[in-house]
């Protein structure tokens, strides 16, 4: 890879799924996976993973801590289809059935440096009340056919979701050869670490 004319650029994602904030639920675990476009390929590291189950601290906060490391390197030829981190949180319901507590996705930050993302989570809603009830009773809430659905825009309009909770992820991003390939991602100073995630949550953050 020491060539002066690289044909791919590399994106290294280190970081961790720090924790989550689900005020109503406990005993949660988190699955993550990366979703990326055709021109991307992972070179090292795990593409998907599952965290341990964590419980809330009895005394202080409502935070659930996982501190689950992420380490992946991607190579790519095209920034289109930039990797997204998809997290889905699961936990037992009142009857002990494992149900989904939230889906969420965020793009891996573009700029090198440290970033923290708070991903708002949501779950699909049952189509009607009765279903909600039976779902609750039987412990079978509506789920996405694939958690990766939340990383794509197509077909989302047919779903109804309810938001619940947040997952905090921190990233440490390194890129290689991007500038050589002509992709300028701007100043890589850590000044702009507090940056944009999806939606309103970030505005609140700043």
């Amino acid at each position, binding site marked *: 890879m020491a060539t002066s004319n690289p*044909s*791919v*650029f590399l994106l290294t994602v280190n970081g961790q799924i720090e924790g989550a*904030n689900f*005020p109503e639920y406990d005993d949660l675990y988190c699955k993550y996976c990366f979703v990326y476009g*055709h*021109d*991307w*390929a992972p070179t090292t590291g795990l593409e998907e993973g599952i965290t341990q189950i964590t419980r809330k601290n009895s005394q*202080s*906060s*409502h*935070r659930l801590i996982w501190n689950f490391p992420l380490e992946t390197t991607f190579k*790519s*030829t*095209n920034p*289109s289809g930039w990797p997204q981190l998809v997290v889905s949180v699961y936990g037992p319901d009142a009857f002990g059935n494992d149900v989904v507590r939230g889906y969420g996705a965020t793009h891996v930050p573009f700029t090198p440096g440290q970033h923290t993302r*708070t991903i*708002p989570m949501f779950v*699909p809603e*049952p*189509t*009607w009340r*009765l*279903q909600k009830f*039976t*779902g609750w009773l*039987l412990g*079978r809430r*509506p*789920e*996405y*056919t*694939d958690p*990766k*659905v939340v990383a794509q825009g*197509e*077909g*989302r*309009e*047919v*779903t109804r979701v309810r938001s619940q909770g*947040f997952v905090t992820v921190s990233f440490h991003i390194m890129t290689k050869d991007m500038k050589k*390939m002509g992709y300028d991602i701007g100043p890589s100073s850590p000044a702009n670490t507090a940056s944009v995630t999806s939606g*309103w*949550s*970030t505005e*609140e*953050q*700043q």
Partner: protein
Amino acid sequence: MASSGDIREKLRKKRQALQETLAKSKNEDDVQEPEGSEEDPGETLKRTIRAQRQRKKKKLLEQTLVQESHDNDDVEEISTIQRDGAEEGSAEKADHSVISLRSQTGSQKGLSSRAQQTPSSQPQSLDDFVKRRLEERLRAARSKGESLQQQEASLEPASRLQGLRDRDTVTRFDREVDPDRSGRHDASPALSTRVKFREAARRVGKGLPNAEEAYNFFTFNFEPDPPDESERSSVKRQKQRKIADRDEGRGDEAEEQEEAEADEDNEEEHENQSEEAPLVQNEEEDLFVIDQSPQDFLEVKKAVYVGYQNLIQRENEQLFTPSFRTVPTSVKLPENMKPRYLEDEGLYVGERPHVSLTNENILENRILKMEEGKKWFGDDGRIMALPDPIKESSTRPPLFHMEEDVDPSLQTVYRKALKSKYANLYIAGAADPEGDYQLDVDVSGLIFSHHPLFSREHVLGARLAQLYDQYLTRQHNNLTGHLTDKLNGLRSALRNMLEIHGGQSLTQAMQQRFSEYSLEIRTTRQLRDSEQEKDRTLLKNIVKVWKELKALREFQKFSNTPYKLYLRRENVDRASDEREHEDEILAEVVEFEAESEEDYQKKLTEYNKQLEEWKLWRRKQKAKKKKKKKKKKGQTHEDTEDEEQEASESEGPIEEGPPKPEPPERPDFDSIEQQVREKASRIRRKPGEAILIPELSASGNITASELCPRPEIARRQDVARRSLFIKILYNDKEVSRTDSRSLNTDFRVHFGQIFNLKIVHCPQSINLQVFEEIGSSCSLLARVFVPVPEPSVVTGNVPVEEYEFSSNQRVMFDHEGVGSDVPLSFEADGSNKQTLLTSGKLSCCVSWGIGEDDVPLAPPVSQQPGGIHSGLDRLDAVTYIGASGLYDMKKIGEWATQSRLDPNDPKNASIMQLLKVASSGEVTAPEYFRLEHLQEEFNFVTDEELERSKRFRLLRLRNREVAEFRNYKCVPALEREVTDKVFQEYEKRLKEGEIIDTKEHLDSHRALVAKYLQKIRESVINRFLLAKHHYVLSDLVIEEEIPSIGILGLNLFKLAEPKRPLKPQRKERKKVTAQNLSDGDIKLLINIIRAFDIPIRRPQSNKPGQAPQSAIQGSDWFLNQVQVRPFVEVSFQRTVLQTTTADGPNPCWNEELQLPFSAPNGDYSNASLQSVKDEVFINMFDEVVHETGVNDKDRGKSIHTWVEKHWLGSVKIPFSTIYSQSRIDGTFKVNTPAVLLGYSKERSHGANGGYDIMRSLSEGTFITLFITMEPQLVPGETIREKFDSQEDEHLLQASERFEREAAQGYPDRPCITTVIDLNGKTVFITRFIRPLNPPQEFLDAFPNNPQEATALVARFVSLIPSLPDRVSFSGACDLWSTCDQFLTLLAGDEEEHAVLLCNYFLSMDKKAWLIIGTAIPEGPTTYVLTYEQSRYLIWNPSSGQYYGQYDTFCPLQTIGCLVNADNVWFNVQEYTTPMRLSFDITKANLWKPFFSRSFSHPGLSSVQPEELVYRRTDKAAAAELQDRIEKILKEKVMEWRPRHPTRWNRYCTTTLKQFLPKLEMSRGQDVTEGHRHELQSLLGENRISGFPLHLPFCEIRPIIEAVYSTGVHSVQVSNVEFALAVYVHPYPNNVLSVWVYLASLVRT
């Protein structure tokens, strides 16, 4: 409640009747009653004083007595309260108790007065009785009171306690215990009446504060308890009433009237009340009266207990308790009004906010009490209410609120205040402190050209001034002078030209110029003349108006205006003047002459031309006439007269021809001069006449007011009273106003104020409003809109401009003022009326201010955002870019050249200047309008370059999901890394769209068909490409189905089921949508259960003919000899799996095989899965073990064996069927070759007799399979698009309804009434059925045997290759083609086969129907039903086989409907399997017809052709094909055996070749055993195994596949030889039957 309500209602009515009678009597004799409450103060005072005295006298005794009575009372009261409690709402009750408690402690006034109260609602009839009772009571009470007097002290507290206690218990309990005593709710009314009464009494005391004050003043020291006074008074009143006759009754009446609304019914209760009340009353009374002791001067009073009842009453006198009964509508509405319901009239009435009925009733009752209460009720008798404003759901999202740890993203963040985001309304930069803009509005003054207060003189004066103004401007412009100069110049130029060119003939150009000049001169002269005329009339008018003015002044003997007109006379040199004049006239005359001469010449030439024409025509006529005459001459003499007539007749039309043109008159030059002179005298000053120069001055005197007549004085005063001011509105907001200035007598107002507006908003409008003020009222006279100045317009360099305004208000005065909009005449006779409107001129100027350092405080042009509202024309995009006003320049320039603007004209001077500037810059504005004029700036490369980029092309193709690039990974980052190779395939395919590889198809016709199919397929695919990206919820979200009641019940039932049932049933698995799958996720599960009737091995023997016998030989053979050892091999996508080997002809494997499935290109979308063409081959083999020899040489015996597998038959199931069916379960007939060398189809005789019966019904081998996929995939929904149709809308609706009903009633029965044809149009299904002729040669082949012919036809149909629509059209839809299309395409689905077969049968005079049903393994399919020889036959059109109705192995499982040319019948029977069905379609309860009596068949014409035309079979082509197939197959077999030599046994091959035509002839049915024997004998020692394969031909590939799947090639014995023979039998229309005979020979 209703019943009790009724009762109440009745009672109330009765009572009302009574009241009315009572009221009458009362009115008659008693007027005191009302007085009682409204006594005048004097009397009250008197009475109170008296009462006071009385009281003082006897206070002690009295007190005790009161208490006494009280105690008695209490008991009674409690009882009433009990009832009360039962009746009234708990809330009310609670209120009462609470209030009563408070009032008990608070005040004690009116204590005993309660006792006086009499119950209400006492009917008169009871009166006497009551009286009697009262008297009795009184007596009793008196004695009792006396006796109790002593104990009083000790009794009192007890009683109070008791009272409290009782009250408590009663109120709490009874309410609960006796809630039903609804009928007895009389107490409260009774109470309230009493209260009312007492209220009256109270009012006596309380209502007169004067008296009370006075009293207090006097008695303050003694008397700490003023309330007693009221008691006194009431007592007093009571006395009065006593005196009066029937006072009680009356009192009651009064009460009742007051209490009209309150309802009470129980008479008895009233009685009790009344019994009691008078008792106390009388008691008191008597006591008061009797005891006039000295005690009454002493006021000693102790704490008084106020009874609960008392308190209630006291409260009630203050409180009004509205009833909660429904108010009858009649009360709420005005009289004689019927309620009007707006809703019924169709008007929208919003939903009223919900108010409980009780509350509403209470409210209504309360409102009705009020004055004008009715106005609160709407027309419908309900309280008026606005629609409910409350939204159902909260509009604000809920927030979790946690005290300590608010989520970081929800934490409140404080930010600096920002400026409004509406900044774009502002001028850019205006927000900065330095960037302030200033608009200076200078309002200098106002001149009225007409004002209502103008006197007549003013009107004239104004007119004079106006004319004079006009004169001045004209003078200033001096148009006449200019034009004269121009004229002179032109004349001299013309003269010069003439002089220069003297007598020479003029060139064309010169002539042109000459005429141009003269034209110019003419127009200029005309212009000048008109100007001169205008000047002259203006002057005349001025003089005329001035004269009028003078006359008016003289007439009215005073003057209002200072105007004075002087006419300055400027003498001229008469001689020169005259000379000039003459010259002028002469010149003009000359010109005129020239012009008229020219005119004349023109006319003359015209005339000549016309004359010429006329003459020509004339000549013709004459010639005609002559001809005629010649003719006539030949005629007889008698006709002469006629002839003449005719001649004249014929002359007639001649006259109508072109008239003889008149020669033009020569211009009369004398008259010209005359005219010129006349005109000159009209428009010009006479020569030598002095030039008159009017001068208007305002130096005249205005007559002082004193000297004026009265109306004029009034007018002047009115004028003096008025003042004016101007409001300045900026963007429609008032920003400033001028001082108010009074109106001068000359109707000029000077303001002279400059307003500096610091602006932030873009200027949109500047508006000055002129207000007139009279006294304190002001009115808007007019508005003046001032344009927003250009940024270059800055203060200091702008002249004040005058803006005219006017108002159309009508004003009239009774004084001299002429008013406005009033007709006004200056003539004596009142004629020539004028109507003048208030108007005037406002002089003002608006400009941008200048800052300190001479910087204009104007916003730059480009920064006026959009300029859309600026009032200036800045809408143009070009302007927006900054090239302001350029387009205007150009237009002006064009216009200037077009209209020949005179550059010397002073009026045009500015324009010319502008043009010069503009044209020097050479700026041209584009002539087009661009929407995104800056788009080009953002294109970073041109489109061509983008097109050329290979990388970009790749990306685009991938995005478009072109098949080759759909999942292309890692598009190279750099252009140079994209190789051209990538596109090669794609481009090749694009090119190949035109050329079809004939080698692949072996037949040019088929190549064309394939191409055509490909085209159709592509168009269909493109059509549904978008639809593929359409998602439904189930694609994205997995959700549990809601268990319906039935399912819930089933589930409950299932709980009782055994956990491990003996015969487990397959359960539905969860379905998985296909989109998120990847390679290896999908597995095909094939469960091979058992097979029947597998052919058994024929023992190897060299003696032909013995074999059959040997099979039936004794049981010892049967036991020793293995008949067959079959196993099943499943191959799918080149994965081959096999089961274990079983024994016998009826083996049972019960094995599950898992085959991995991978989709093409790794694309697991529905569309791609559906178009998978792969088939599952299930091949049945016999495992043959050969012992090669026994080797004794080593120690022990070792046997070498080798295993051979012999193909027995196969079942082929397309993947698309599995995918769409999701599971296939059933027993299939195994395709066994017609001849299986080495095997016999003899039945085994070891089987049970029970099976025999079943087996006897069918022939062939069967296998039971269960095939499914893991995970279960959701088959793609066929998209029911609304296709356009030529069918009647009515019919379409009916069919939709029919299908819907069918789907509801019988969800598992397919029902089709409309189908889509190849053009994508919806067609009714019966149109496809029509008798069509089969190829004649089939009918001829078996003229005597219709059975055979039928079979042949079926075979022909089955030989047409089958191509499922699902495969060809990605499952998008099911297209039906007509029979001719089908025969042309030579490919089709089951339905095409079925339709064709059905049509053939119909033409063969069979009764035939199309069956729409489901079969295995095809799924929803179409079969044909025929009725012959009184039995129904079911035909499988794809295989050409037929089954009886009761055939167990009939693949048809469900019959949904039957179709023929006339109708569609839907199966409404209980069962769907053909075995249990009755096919009697005439029975409507079994078969529901589509067209019935109610909806008859509209006579649909068929879409099928009249007749099918068949192409002759091309034997040569078939032979060629045969050779080619053979060659290819041989190559392939050798290819499949790369490690072994493949030898071909020619001899055997030729032998086999002979068999094949025979097989074709017999359609593979009954194979003569002879073949085999023949073979056997021929080949002698060779062990031969082989079979003929039969296939319909469509492509070479399936044939190869089929050969490969038999595995003949895999024989690995070294001395094996092969034989391969191919036979292609041609049928009409290129339908080909292919036979492949394959055999392996092993020399033994």
